[in-house]
């Protein structure tokens, strides 16, 4: 059984009179223990795709099957329970600003009604796992981006998920921090056996940690398979750093005839 199976998935948005097909006929399988990278340019539909994996976006067609359960068949309550197995981290971390680090990590546990004392023990454990033992009482606004993402990872792990979805998790971070977060993700994958699905526009991320990769272009999968087997279109995806950012924007504009609006994001 595949950990995640995506069959004929499509998603379109209807905005007034115009219909936009964000995803078209996506077929994909992710196996247990994979670190699966989905790479694509801004506007390719990556974010929509990853949000379909926990049904934050409801697909307009096709199926998403997670551990043998088709998400579309679940009712609201079953879906909420299922989501506890599918953790997610975000580009902008999305921590609760009014809660300190430890309370942020406890948060998913309190949602499940777990006793605060038990939750706190676990939270401190996870906090040391991500290397922020001394920041327990700090508030997110007092932390750097990398630290906030570590807290977000600790929070994601609190509910013992089977899958971790990473939505551009390193896109707002500098290259050094990116590297350290990626190595943390790799550790987690190894240590807890958590399947990771990440979306990114950074080729470096895919190359650094993924064992499988899929390439998304304008809502369609153009390549998918093991990292070493897939013919990655090197010229289309970029290292993200200050020196080549502008050049790449120009490049994208010239080669694809459209502005890359949200290049960093």
């Amino acid at each position, binding site marked *: 059984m595949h950990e995640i199976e995506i069959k004929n998935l499509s998603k379109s948005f209807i905005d007034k009179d115009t219909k936009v097909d964000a995803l078209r006929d996506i077929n994909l399988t992710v196996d247990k223990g994979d670190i699966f990278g989905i790479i694509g340019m801004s506007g390719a539909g990556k974010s929509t795709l990853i949000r379909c994996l*926990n049904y*934050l976006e409801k697909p307009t067609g096709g199926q998403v099957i997670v551990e043998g359960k088709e998400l579309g068949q679940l009712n609201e309550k079953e879906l*909420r*329970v*299922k*989501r*506890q197995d*599918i*953790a*997610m981290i*975000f580009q*902008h971390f*999305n*921590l*609760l*600003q*009014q*809660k*300190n680090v430890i309370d942020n990590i406890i*948060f*998913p546990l*309190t*949602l*499940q009604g777990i006793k605060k004392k038990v939750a706190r023990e676990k939270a401190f454990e996870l906090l040391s796992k991500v290397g922020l033992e001394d920041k327990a009482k700090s*508030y*997110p*606004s007092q932390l750097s981006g990398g630290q906030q993402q570590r807290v977000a990872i600790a929070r994601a792990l609190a*509910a013992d998920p089977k899958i971790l*979805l990473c939505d551009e998790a390193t896109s707002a971070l500098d290259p050094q921090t990116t590297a350290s977060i990626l190595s943390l993700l790799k550790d987690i994958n190894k240590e807890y056996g958590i399947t990771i699905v990440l979306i990114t526009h950074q080729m470096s991320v895919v190359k650094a940690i993924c064992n499988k990769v899929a390439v998304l272009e304008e809502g369609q999968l153009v390549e998918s398979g093991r990292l070493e087997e897939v013919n990655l279109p090197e010229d289309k995806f970029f290292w993200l750093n200050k020196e080549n950012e502008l050049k790449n924007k120009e490049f994208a504009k010239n080669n694809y005839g459209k502005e890359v609006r949200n290049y960093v994001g």
Partner: protein
Amino acid sequence: MWDSATINMILEGIVGTVYMSIVSTFFGYVFGLPMGVLLTISDKNGLRPNRALYKILDATSNVVRSIPFVILLILLIPFTRLVVGKSYGTSATIVPLVICAAPYIARMVESSLKEVDDGVVEAAKAMGASNIQIVFKVLLVEARTSLITNATIALGTVLGYSAMAGTVGGGGLGDIAVRYGYYRYQADIMIVTVVLLIVLFQIFQNTGMFIARKLNHKI
């Protein structure tokens, strides 16, 4: 002029004003807070969009806010009598004050809750939070600074409206200012009451802002 009866009247006025403002604002939130939450979640990008419910709440809040307070005071007399047993006096003033304040409060709550970062709400959803958990554990908690700041504003506004309480014998400083300062040309009483109102307003304002600042952990 500054005999004991006058001084007593002013002291009672202070008590009346504080009592009316605080109790009315409190009950204003008892009704306005749920209404604001419902407005937020039933709106088209809310947690559970419901066009009909949103339209009804929206229209209700707009209608009540359009009615001049003095008219509301009179219109609500039978209702007031039903609720507090009499249609005159300080407690009777609280009923129309609450009804007048609740829609304003609902709107302010709505705007506070809509300030909460969508990403945080999305994160909670991804963790499997129910809508009720999102409202109580995310929206209201994350928006608390803004909610408290707005509560301070609501309290100040209710304080202002309570000046019209004299119509139904509600008393309070505002009523004294109107009747002695305006009707009877007793400038000294008017000045004293107005200064007291300003002081009360400042105390409310500073306390509210202090609490809001203490509780805020976002920069």
